[in-house]
Protein backbone atom coordinates (compact mmCIF):
# COMPACT_ATOMS: atom_id res chain seq x y z
CA UNK A 1 0.00 0.00 0.00
CA UNK A 2 1.29 3.40 -0.89
CA UNK A 3 1.38 6.30 1.50
CA UNK A 4 -1.69 8.36 0.76
CA UNK A 5 -0.80 11.51 2.67
CA UNK A 6 1.88 14.08 2.00
CA UNK A 7 4.02 13.38 5.05
CA UNK A 8 7.73 13.31 4.23
CA UNK A 9 9.00 9.95 3.06
CA UNK A 10 11.15 7.97 5.47
CA UNK A 11 14.53 6.66 4.42
CA UNK A 12 16.13 3.32 5.17
CA UNK A 13 19.77 3.07 6.34
CA UNK A 14 20.66 2.09 2.74
CA UNK A 15 19.11 5.18 1.12
CA UNK A 16 22.46 6.77 0.19
CA UNK A 17 23.66 3.48 -1.26
CA UNK A 18 20.57 3.28 -3.50
CA UNK A 19 21.17 6.77 -4.85
CA UNK A 20 24.89 6.13 -5.37
CA UNK A 21 24.05 3.02 -7.41
CA UNK A 22 21.65 4.79 -9.74
CA UNK A 23 18.34 3.65 -8.27
CA UNK A 24 15.07 5.13 -9.44
CA UNK A 25 13.27 5.92 -6.20
CA UNK A 26 9.53 5.71 -5.57
CA UNK A 27 7.33 6.15 -2.50
CA UNK A 28 6.39 2.78 -0.98
CA UNK A 29 4.66 2.27 2.37
CA UNK A 30 5.84 5.70 3.50
CA UNK A 31 9.47 5.11 2.47
CA UNK A 32 11.55 6.40 -0.41
CA UNK A 33 12.50 3.05 -1.96
CA UNK A 34 14.39 1.84 -5.05
CA UNK A 35 12.00 0.46 -7.70
CA UNK A 36 14.90 -0.41 -10.00
CA UNK A 37 18.58 0.31 -10.61
CA UNK A 38 20.30 0.97 -13.93
CA UNK A 39 20.04 -2.68 -15.07
CA UNK A 40 16.23 -2.47 -15.09
CA UNK A 41 13.50 -4.77 -13.76
CA UNK A 42 13.90 -7.52 -16.37
CA UNK A 43 17.66 -7.97 -15.94
CA UNK A 44 17.44 -7.60 -12.16
CA UNK A 45 14.80 -10.34 -12.04
CA UNK A 46 16.78 -12.72 -14.23
CA UNK A 47 20.03 -11.98 -12.39
CA UNK A 48 18.41 -12.94 -9.10
CA UNK A 49 17.29 -16.27 -10.58
CA UNK A 50 20.69 -16.98 -12.18
CA UNK A 51 23.11 -15.41 -9.66
CA UNK A 52 22.10 -13.39 -6.60
CA UNK A 53 20.22 -10.21 -5.79
CA UNK A 54 20.47 -7.92 -2.79
CA UNK A 55 17.21 -6.29 -1.67
CA UNK A 56 16.75 -3.55 0.89
CA UNK A 57 13.72 -4.61 2.91
CA UNK A 58 14.54 -2.37 5.87
CA UNK A 59 11.10 -0.75 5.57
CA UNK A 60 9.60 -3.92 7.02
CA UNK A 61 8.90 -4.07 10.75
CA UNK A 62 11.13 -6.07 13.08
CA UNK A 63 9.99 -6.84 16.62
CA UNK A 64 11.17 -8.92 19.55
CA UNK A 65 8.57 -10.58 21.79
CA UNK A 66 10.33 -11.18 25.10
CA UNK A 67 8.40 -13.41 27.56
CA UNK A 68 8.05 -11.81 30.98
CA UNK A 69 8.31 -15.29 32.52
CA UNK A 70 11.62 -15.90 30.77
CA UNK A 71 10.09 -18.92 29.02
CA UNK A 72 9.76 -18.58 25.26
CA UNK A 73 6.83 -21.02 25.35
CA UNK A 74 4.81 -18.36 27.13
CA UNK A 75 5.47 -15.87 24.35
CA UNK A 76 4.56 -18.54 21.80
CA UNK A 77 1.27 -19.39 23.51
CA UNK A 78 0.43 -15.70 23.80
CA UNK A 79 1.08 -15.11 20.09
CA UNK A 80 -1.12 -18.10 19.25
CA UNK A 81 -4.08 -15.93 20.37
CA UNK A 82 -3.49 -13.75 17.30
CA UNK A 83 -2.45 -16.26 14.61
CA UNK A 84 -3.80 -19.66 13.48
CA UNK A 85 -0.29 -21.15 13.35
CA UNK A 86 1.53 -23.53 15.68
CA UNK A 87 3.95 -21.11 17.31
CA UNK A 88 4.73 -23.31 20.32
CA UNK A 89 6.01 -25.94 17.87
CA UNK A 90 8.62 -23.68 16.27
CA UNK A 91 11.89 -25.21 17.47
CA UNK A 92 14.68 -22.93 18.68
CA UNK A 93 16.56 -21.63 15.64
CA UNK A 94 13.59 -22.12 13.33
CA UNK A 95 11.15 -19.75 11.62
CA UNK A 96 7.57 -20.08 10.34
CA UNK A 97 5.15 -18.13 8.12
CA UNK A 98 2.03 -16.84 9.93
CA UNK A 99 -0.90 -14.43 9.62
CA UNK A 100 -2.60 -12.09 12.10
CA UNK A 101 -6.35 -12.74 11.82
CA UNK A 102 -9.33 -10.55 12.67
CA UNK A 103 -12.72 -11.45 14.23
CA UNK A 104 -14.18 -12.19 10.79
CA UNK A 105 -11.37 -14.58 9.87
CA UNK A 106 -9.78 -11.98 7.60
CA UNK A 107 -6.08 -11.18 7.62
CA UNK A 108 -4.59 -8.11 9.28
CA UNK A 109 -1.10 -8.90 7.97
CA UNK A 110 1.19 -11.80 7.21
CA UNK A 111 4.47 -12.24 9.05
CA UNK A 112 7.46 -14.42 9.82
CA UNK A 113 7.98 -15.69 13.37
CA UNK A 114 11.32 -17.09 14.56
CA UNK A 115 12.19 -18.77 17.84
CA UNK A 116 15.47 -17.29 19.06
CA UNK A 117 15.58 -19.55 22.14
CA UNK A 118 14.70 -16.99 24.80
CA UNK A 119 12.35 -14.81 22.74
CA UNK A 120 10.45 -14.63 19.46
CA UNK A 121 11.65 -12.50 16.55
CA UNK A 122 8.94 -11.25 14.22
CA UNK A 123 9.07 -9.57 10.79
CA UNK A 124 5.92 -7.81 9.51
CA UNK A 125 4.98 -5.79 6.43
CA UNK A 126 6.00 -2.15 6.23
CA UNK A 127 2.52 -0.81 5.50
CA UNK A 128 1.06 -2.60 8.55
CA UNK A 129 3.88 -2.35 11.06
CA UNK A 130 2.43 0.38 13.27
CA UNK A 131 -0.96 -1.35 13.46
CA UNK A 132 0.74 -4.72 14.06
CA UNK A 133 2.80 -3.34 16.92
CA UNK A 134 -0.30 -1.79 18.49
CA UNK A 135 -2.16 -5.09 18.03
CA UNK A 136 0.66 -7.00 19.76
CA UNK A 137 0.80 -4.47 22.60
CA UNK A 138 -2.97 -4.63 23.08
CA UNK A 139 -3.11 -8.42 23.30
CA UNK A 140 0.32 -9.64 24.42
CA UNK A 141 1.59 -7.07 26.90
CA UNK A 142 0.71 -9.27 29.90
CA UNK A 143 2.87 -12.10 28.63
CA UNK A 144 5.56 -10.28 26.69
CA UNK A 145 7.65 -7.21 26.51
CA UNK A 146 7.19 -6.01 22.92
CA UNK A 147 10.34 -4.40 21.60
CA UNK A 148 10.34 -2.56 18.28
CA UNK A 149 13.69 -3.12 16.59
CA UNK A 150 13.51 0.08 14.57
CA UNK A 151 17.28 0.50 14.84
CA UNK A 152 17.89 -2.48 12.57
CA UNK A 153 18.03 -2.70 8.79
CA UNK A 154 16.93 -5.81 6.87
CA UNK A 155 18.78 -7.06 3.81
CA UNK A 156 17.56 -9.94 1.66
CA UNK A 157 20.13 -11.86 -0.37
CA UNK A 158 18.38 -14.17 -2.83
CA UNK A 159 19.36 -16.52 -5.61
CA UNK A 160 21.56 -19.55 -6.35
CA UNK A 161 24.75 -17.62 -5.52
CA UNK A 162 23.38 -16.22 -2.24
CA UNK A 163 24.94 -19.00 -0.16
CA UNK A 164 28.45 -18.61 -1.58
CA UNK A 165 28.22 -14.81 -1.34
CA UNK A 166 27.13 -14.83 2.29
CA UNK A 167 29.55 -17.65 3.20
CA UNK A 168 32.48 -15.29 2.49
CA UNK A 169 31.25 -13.12 5.39
CA UNK A 170 29.54 -15.76 7.52
CA UNK A 171 30.85 -19.33 7.26
CA UNK A 172 27.90 -20.53 9.41
CA UNK A 173 25.45 -19.64 6.62
CA UNK A 174 26.29 -22.77 4.62
CA UNK A 175 24.97 -25.13 7.31
CA UNK A 176 21.61 -23.35 7.53
CA UNK A 177 18.53 -24.99 5.99
CA UNK A 178 15.39 -23.32 4.66
CA UNK A 179 13.64 -21.51 7.54
CA UNK A 180 16.55 -21.81 9.96
CA UNK A 181 16.90 -18.50 11.80
CA UNK A 182 18.95 -17.02 14.59
CA UNK A 183 21.79 -14.76 15.66
CA UNK A 184 24.93 -15.11 13.50
CA UNK A 185 28.13 -13.07 13.13
CA UNK A 186 28.29 -11.60 9.62
CA UNK A 187 31.51 -9.79 8.66
CA UNK A 188 32.21 -9.32 12.38
CA UNK A 189 28.79 -7.82 13.12
CA UNK A 190 26.10 -9.38 15.33
CA UNK A 191 23.19 -10.05 12.99
CA UNK A 192 20.04 -12.16 12.84
CA UNK A 193 20.13 -14.41 9.81
CA UNK A 194 17.32 -16.54 8.42
CA UNK A 195 17.48 -18.81 5.40
CA UNK A 196 14.34 -17.48 3.76
CA UNK A 197 13.05 -14.75 1.52
CA UNK A 198 10.23 -13.88 -0.81
CA UNK A 199 11.47 -14.68 -4.31
CA UNK A 200 11.10 -18.47 -4.49
CA UNK A 201 14.89 -18.71 -4.55
CA UNK A 202 17.23 -20.06 -1.92
CA UNK A 203 18.55 -17.15 0.07
CA UNK A 204 18.83 -15.28 3.32
CA UNK A 205 17.41 -12.34 5.19
CA UNK A 206 19.91 -10.52 7.36
CA UNK A 207 18.83 -8.20 10.16
CA UNK A 208 21.73 -5.85 10.88
CA UNK A 209 22.12 -2.81 13.17
CA UNK A 210 21.32 0.28 11.08
CA UNK A 211 24.76 1.84 11.50
CA UNK A 212 26.40 -1.30 10.08
CA UNK A 213 23.94 -1.84 7.21
CA UNK A 214 25.69 0.11 4.47
CA UNK A 215 29.05 -1.55 5.15
CA UNK A 216 27.44 -5.01 5.06
CA UNK A 217 25.48 -4.28 1.88
CA UNK A 218 28.62 -2.91 0.24
CA UNK A 219 30.64 -5.97 1.25
CA UNK A 220 27.99 -8.25 -0.28
CA UNK A 221 27.76 -6.10 -3.42
CA UNK A 222 31.56 -6.25 -3.86
CA UNK A 223 30.93 -9.84 -4.97
CA UNK A 224 30.45 -9.75 -8.76
CA UNK A 225 27.66 -12.34 -8.45
CA UNK A 226 25.53 -9.92 -6.42
CA UNK A 227 23.54 -7.02 -7.93
CA UNK A 228 21.24 -4.62 -6.08
CA UNK A 229 17.60 -5.35 -6.97
CA UNK A 230 14.66 -2.97 -6.70
CA UNK A 231 11.05 -3.40 -5.67
CA UNK A 232 9.99 -3.90 -9.31
CA UNK A 233 11.85 -7.18 -9.63
CA UNK A 234 11.02 -8.13 -6.04
CA UNK A 235 7.37 -8.01 -7.10
CA UNK A 236 7.80 -10.02 -10.32
CA UNK A 237 9.92 -12.60 -8.45
CA UNK A 238 7.38 -13.10 -5.66
CA UNK A 239 4.55 -13.25 -8.21
CA UNK A 240 6.30 -16.02 -10.18
CA UNK A 241 6.84 -17.79 -6.85
CA UNK A 242 3.07 -17.65 -6.23
CA UNK A 243 3.56 -15.72 -2.99
CA UNK A 244 0.91 -13.33 -1.66
CA UNK A 245 1.42 -9.59 -1.46
CA UNK A 246 -0.44 -8.33 1.59
CA UNK A 247 -2.97 -5.62 0.75
CA UNK A 248 -3.40 -7.08 -2.73
CA UNK A 249 -3.69 -10.88 -2.74
CA UNK A 250 -4.74 -11.12 0.89
CA UNK A 251 -6.31 -8.52 3.17
CA UNK A 252 -8.88 -8.06 5.94
CA UNK A 253 -11.60 -9.52 3.68
CA UNK A 254 -9.80 -12.78 2.79
CA UNK A 255 -9.40 -15.77 5.09
CA UNK A 256 -6.40 -18.12 5.07
CA UNK A 257 -8.57 -20.75 3.34
CA UNK A 258 -9.81 -18.35 0.65
CA UNK A 259 -6.22 -17.22 0.21
CA UNK A 260 -5.12 -20.85 -0.41
CA UNK A 261 -2.89 -20.67 2.67
CA UNK A 262 -4.23 -23.78 4.44
CA UNK A 263 -0.75 -25.29 4.26
CA UNK A 264 0.33 -22.65 6.78
CA UNK A 265 -2.23 -23.73 9.43
CA UNK A 266 -0.82 -26.69 11.32
CA UNK A 267 -3.03 -29.58 12.53
CA UNK A 268 -2.55 -28.76 16.19
CA UNK A 269 -4.56 -25.52 15.69
CA UNK A 270 -7.32 -27.14 13.62
CA UNK A 271 -10.44 -28.98 14.82
CA UNK A 272 -9.32 -32.03 16.77
CA UNK A 273 -5.88 -30.57 17.45
CA UNK A 274 -4.51 -30.13 20.97
CA UNK A 275 -4.69 -26.31 20.71
CA UNK A 276 -7.51 -25.98 18.18
CA UNK A 277 -8.85 -22.45 17.71
CA UNK A 278 -8.26 -19.78 20.31
CA UNK A 279 -7.33 -17.14 17.73
CA UNK A 280 -9.46 -14.33 16.32
CA UNK A 281 -11.91 -15.50 13.67
CA UNK A 282 -11.31 -19.15 14.61
CA UNK A 283 -14.96 -20.19 14.16
CA UNK A 284 -14.99 -19.16 10.53
CA UNK A 285 -11.48 -20.31 9.66
CA UNK A 286 -11.83 -23.72 11.33
CA UNK A 287 -15.15 -24.30 9.59
CA UNK A 288 -13.62 -23.36 6.24
CA UNK A 289 -10.65 -25.66 6.88
CA UNK A 290 -13.14 -28.53 7.14
CA UNK A 291 -15.75 -27.52 4.59
CA UNK A 292 -13.83 -25.28 2.21
CA UNK A 293 -14.67 -21.73 1.22
CA UNK A 294 -16.83 -20.41 -1.60
CA UNK A 295 -13.95 -18.64 -3.31
CA UNK A 296 -10.26 -19.28 -3.65
CA UNK A 297 -7.06 -17.58 -4.75
CA UNK A 298 -5.85 -19.24 -7.93
CA UNK A 299 -2.85 -19.02 -10.24
CA UNK A 300 -3.69 -17.74 -13.71
CA UNK A 301 -1.74 -17.93 -16.96
CA UNK A 302 -3.07 -15.59 -19.67
CA UNK A 303 -2.95 -16.88 -23.26
CA UNK A 304 -0.71 -14.74 -25.43
CA UNK A 305 1.65 -12.05 -24.20
CA UNK A 306 -0.62 -9.31 -22.86
CA UNK A 307 -0.20 -8.90 -19.10
CA UNK A 308 -3.43 -9.04 -17.09
CA UNK A 309 -2.92 -6.74 -14.14
CA UNK A 310 -4.33 -6.17 -10.67
CA UNK A 311 -7.97 -5.11 -10.75
CA UNK A 312 -8.87 -6.85 -14.01
CA UNK A 313 -12.37 -8.32 -13.67
CA UNK A 314 -12.79 -12.06 -14.28
CA UNK A 315 -15.66 -13.77 -16.10
CA UNK A 316 -16.63 -17.43 -16.56
CA UNK A 317 -16.76 -17.11 -20.35
CA UNK A 318 -16.22 -14.69 -23.20
CA UNK A 319 -19.71 -13.18 -23.06
CA UNK A 320 -21.04 -13.56 -19.48
CA UNK A 321 -22.31 -10.31 -17.98
CA UNK A 322 -21.75 -11.25 -14.33
CA UNK A 323 -18.18 -10.97 -12.99
CA UNK A 324 -16.94 -13.95 -10.98
CA UNK A 325 -13.83 -12.45 -9.43
CA UNK A 326 -10.86 -10.17 -9.80
CA UNK A 327 -7.16 -10.33 -10.49
CA UNK A 328 -5.24 -9.34 -7.33
CA UNK A 329 -1.69 -9.46 -8.73
CA UNK A 330 -0.66 -9.67 -12.34
CA UNK A 331 2.16 -8.77 -14.62
CA UNK A 332 4.87 -10.21 -16.76
CA UNK A 333 7.01 -13.07 -15.49
CA UNK A 334 10.51 -12.57 -16.91
CA UNK A 335 11.64 -16.13 -16.09
CA UNK A 336 8.59 -17.56 -17.85
CA UNK A 337 8.78 -14.94 -20.60
CA UNK A 338 5.02 -14.80 -20.29
CA UNK A 339 2.33 -12.99 -18.34
CA UNK A 340 1.24 -14.40 -14.96
CA UNK A 341 -1.49 -13.45 -12.53
CA UNK A 342 -3.36 -14.55 -9.46
CA UNK A 343 -6.87 -13.76 -8.42
CA UNK A 344 -9.98 -14.94 -6.64
CA UNK A 345 -12.44 -17.31 -8.32
CA UNK A 346 -15.50 -19.21 -7.14
CA UNK A 347 -14.08 -22.50 -5.82
CA UNK A 348 -16.05 -24.37 -8.49
CA UNK A 349 -14.07 -22.52 -11.18
CA UNK A 350 -10.70 -22.58 -9.39
CA UNK A 351 -9.76 -26.13 -10.43
CA UNK A 352 -6.51 -26.44 -12.36
CA UNK A 353 -7.12 -26.48 -16.10
CA UNK A 354 -10.27 -24.31 -16.00
CA UNK A 355 -10.38 -21.46 -18.51
CA UNK A 356 -11.69 -18.10 -17.33
CA UNK A 357 -11.67 -14.68 -18.99
CA UNK A 358 -10.32 -11.31 -17.90
CA UNK A 359 -11.54 -8.03 -19.28
CA UNK A 360 -8.58 -5.95 -20.47
CA UNK A 361 -9.24 -2.72 -22.36
CA UNK A 362 -12.71 -3.87 -23.38
CA UNK A 363 -11.59 -7.31 -24.61
CA UNK A 364 -12.06 -10.69 -22.94
CA UNK A 365 -8.73 -12.48 -22.73
CA UNK A 366 -8.65 -16.20 -21.83
CA UNK A 367 -6.60 -17.35 -18.83
CA UNK A 368 -5.95 -20.87 -17.62
CA UNK A 369 -6.06 -21.78 -13.93
CA UNK A 370 -2.69 -23.34 -13.10
CA UNK A 371 -0.87 -24.63 -10.03
CA UNK A 372 1.42 -22.27 -8.16
CA UNK A 373 4.29 -21.56 -7.89
CA UNK A 374 4.57 -20.59 -11.55
CA UNK A 375 8.35 -21.01 -11.29
CA UNK A 376 9.58 -23.91 -9.12
CA UNK A 377 11.18 -22.77 -5.89
CA UNK A 378 14.75 -23.72 -5.04
CA UNK A 379 14.67 -23.63 -1.24
CA UNK A 380 17.46 -25.57 0.48
CA UNK A 381 15.45 -27.94 2.65
Amino acid at each position, binding site marked *: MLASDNSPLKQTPLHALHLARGARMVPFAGYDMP*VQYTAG*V*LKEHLHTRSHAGLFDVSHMGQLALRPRSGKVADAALALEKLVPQDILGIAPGRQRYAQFTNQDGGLLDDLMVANFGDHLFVVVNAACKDEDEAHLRAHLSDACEIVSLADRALIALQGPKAESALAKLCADAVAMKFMDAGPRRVDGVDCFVSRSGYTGEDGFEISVPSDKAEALATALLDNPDVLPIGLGARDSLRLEAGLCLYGHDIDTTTTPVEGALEWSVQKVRRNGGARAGGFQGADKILAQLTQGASRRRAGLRPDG*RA*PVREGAVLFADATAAEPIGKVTSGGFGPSLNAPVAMGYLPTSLAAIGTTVFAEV*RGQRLPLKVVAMPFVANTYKR
Partner: protein
Amino acid sequence: MTTLYTSDHEWLRIEGDVATIGITDYAQSQLGDVVFVELPKVGRSLKKAEAAAVVESVKAASDVYAPITGEVVEVNEALAAEPALVNSDAGGKAWFFKLKIADKSELGGLMDEAAYAAHTA
Protein backbone atom coordinates in the same frame (compact mmCIF):
# COMPACT_ATOMS: atom_id res chain seq x y z
CA MET B 1 10.96 14.46 -44.16
CA THR B 2 10.19 16.24 -40.89
CA THR B 3 10.25 14.73 -37.41
CA LEU B 4 7.96 16.25 -34.81
CA TYR B 5 7.36 15.45 -31.12
CA THR B 6 4.56 15.59 -28.58
CA SER B 7 4.75 16.45 -24.89
CA ASP B 8 3.61 12.83 -24.26
CA HIS B 9 6.94 11.62 -25.73
CA GLU B 10 5.77 10.42 -29.12
CA TRP B 11 7.54 11.15 -32.38
CA LEU B 12 5.97 11.63 -35.82
CA ARG B 13 7.83 11.32 -39.08
CA ILE B 14 5.92 13.18 -41.79
CA GLU B 15 6.17 11.92 -45.37
CA GLY B 16 3.56 13.46 -47.66
CA ASP B 17 0.16 12.93 -46.05
CA VAL B 18 1.30 9.99 -43.88
CA ALA B 19 2.72 10.26 -40.36
CA THR B 20 4.75 7.37 -38.90
CA ILE B 21 4.39 7.38 -35.12
CA GLY B 22 6.48 5.89 -32.32
CA ILE B 23 7.60 6.68 -28.79
CA THR B 24 10.83 8.48 -28.03
CA ASP B 25 14.01 7.05 -26.60
CA TYR B 26 13.34 9.12 -23.49
CA ALA B 27 9.91 7.45 -23.16
CA GLN B 28 11.31 3.93 -23.47
CA SER B 29 14.00 4.71 -20.89
CA GLN B 30 11.28 5.79 -18.45
CA LEU B 31 9.08 2.76 -19.16
CA GLY B 32 11.82 0.18 -18.76
CA ASP B 33 11.81 -3.24 -20.41
CA VAL B 34 8.88 -3.44 -22.82
CA VAL B 35 7.24 -6.88 -22.86
CA PHE B 36 4.07 -6.26 -24.88
CA VAL B 37 2.72 -3.77 -27.39
CA GLU B 38 -0.93 -3.56 -28.43
CA LEU B 39 -1.45 -1.75 -31.74
CA PRO B 40 -4.59 -0.25 -33.29
CA LYS B 41 -6.34 -2.04 -36.16
CA VAL B 42 -5.60 -0.93 -39.70
CA GLY B 43 -8.49 1.16 -40.95
CA ARG B 44 -9.37 2.57 -37.53
CA SER B 45 -10.04 6.30 -37.42
CA LEU B 46 -8.32 7.96 -34.51
CA LYS B 47 -9.08 11.34 -33.07
CA LYS B 48 -6.27 13.48 -31.74
CA ALA B 49 -5.51 12.53 -28.07
CA GLU B 50 -7.44 9.25 -28.32
CA ALA B 51 -5.75 6.17 -26.79
CA ALA B 52 -4.30 4.39 -29.84
CA ALA B 53 -1.85 1.80 -28.56
CA VAL B 54 -0.67 0.30 -25.28
CA VAL B 55 2.89 -0.38 -24.29
CA GLU B 56 3.49 -2.65 -21.31
CA SER B 57 6.65 -2.97 -19.27
CA VAL B 58 7.19 -5.64 -16.62
CA LYS B 59 5.69 -3.27 -14.09
CA ALA B 60 2.98 -1.20 -15.79
CA ALA B 61 0.82 -0.49 -18.83
CA SER B 62 0.98 2.90 -20.56
CA ASP B 63 -1.28 4.32 -23.24
CA VAL B 64 0.09 5.79 -26.44
CA TYR B 65 -2.21 8.56 -27.68
CA ALA B 66 -2.88 9.55 -31.27
CA PRO B 67 -0.89 12.78 -31.60
CA ILE B 68 -3.10 13.90 -34.51
CA THR B 69 -6.38 12.88 -36.11
CA GLY B 70 -6.19 10.33 -38.90
CA GLU B 71 -6.83 6.83 -40.20
CA VAL B 72 -4.48 3.95 -39.36
CA VAL B 73 -2.97 2.77 -42.66
CA GLU B 74 -0.27 0.42 -41.37
CA VAL B 75 0.94 -1.05 -38.04
CA ASN B 76 4.34 -2.47 -37.14
CA GLU B 77 3.69 -6.20 -36.78
CA ALA B 78 7.34 -6.74 -35.78
CA LEU B 79 6.54 -5.31 -32.33
CA ALA B 80 4.20 -8.22 -31.55
CA ALA B 81 7.03 -10.70 -32.00
CA GLU B 82 9.75 -8.52 -30.52
CA PRO B 83 8.43 -5.86 -28.12
CA ALA B 84 11.99 -5.26 -26.85
CA LEU B 85 12.64 -3.41 -30.12
CA VAL B 86 11.01 -0.46 -28.38
CA ASN B 87 13.94 -0.41 -25.94
CA SER B 88 16.67 -1.05 -28.50
CA ASP B 89 15.49 1.20 -31.36
CA ALA B 90 12.62 3.43 -30.21
CA GLY B 91 13.24 6.07 -32.85
CA GLY B 92 13.67 3.65 -35.76
CA LYS B 93 12.61 0.00 -36.18
CA ALA B 94 10.15 0.27 -33.28
CA TRP B 95 7.66 2.57 -35.02
CA PHE B 96 4.10 1.79 -33.84
CA PHE B 97 1.67 2.79 -36.59
CA LYS B 98 1.16 5.05 -39.60
CA LEU B 99 -1.68 7.54 -39.84
CA LYS B 100 -3.14 9.15 -42.95
CA ILE B 101 -3.16 12.75 -41.77
CA ALA B 102 -6.70 14.19 -41.66
CA ASP B 103 -5.82 17.80 -40.89
CA LYS B 104 -2.30 19.09 -41.51
CA SER B 105 -2.98 22.15 -39.36
CA GLU B 106 -2.78 19.88 -36.28
CA LEU B 107 0.95 19.48 -36.95
CA GLY B 108 1.42 23.12 -36.02
CA GLY B 109 0.91 22.32 -32.35
CA LEU B 110 3.78 19.84 -32.20
CA MET B 111 7.41 20.35 -31.17
CA ASP B 112 10.51 20.21 -33.34
CA GLU B 113 13.59 18.36 -32.16
CA ALA B 114 15.10 21.36 -30.35
CA ALA B 115 11.86 22.11 -28.52
CA TYR B 116 11.48 18.45 -27.52
CA ALA B 117 15.07 18.33 -26.26
CA ALA B 118 14.29 21.34 -24.09
CA HIS B 119 11.07 19.64 -22.91
CA THR B 120 12.94 16.58 -21.62
CA ALA B 121 15.97 18.44 -20.31
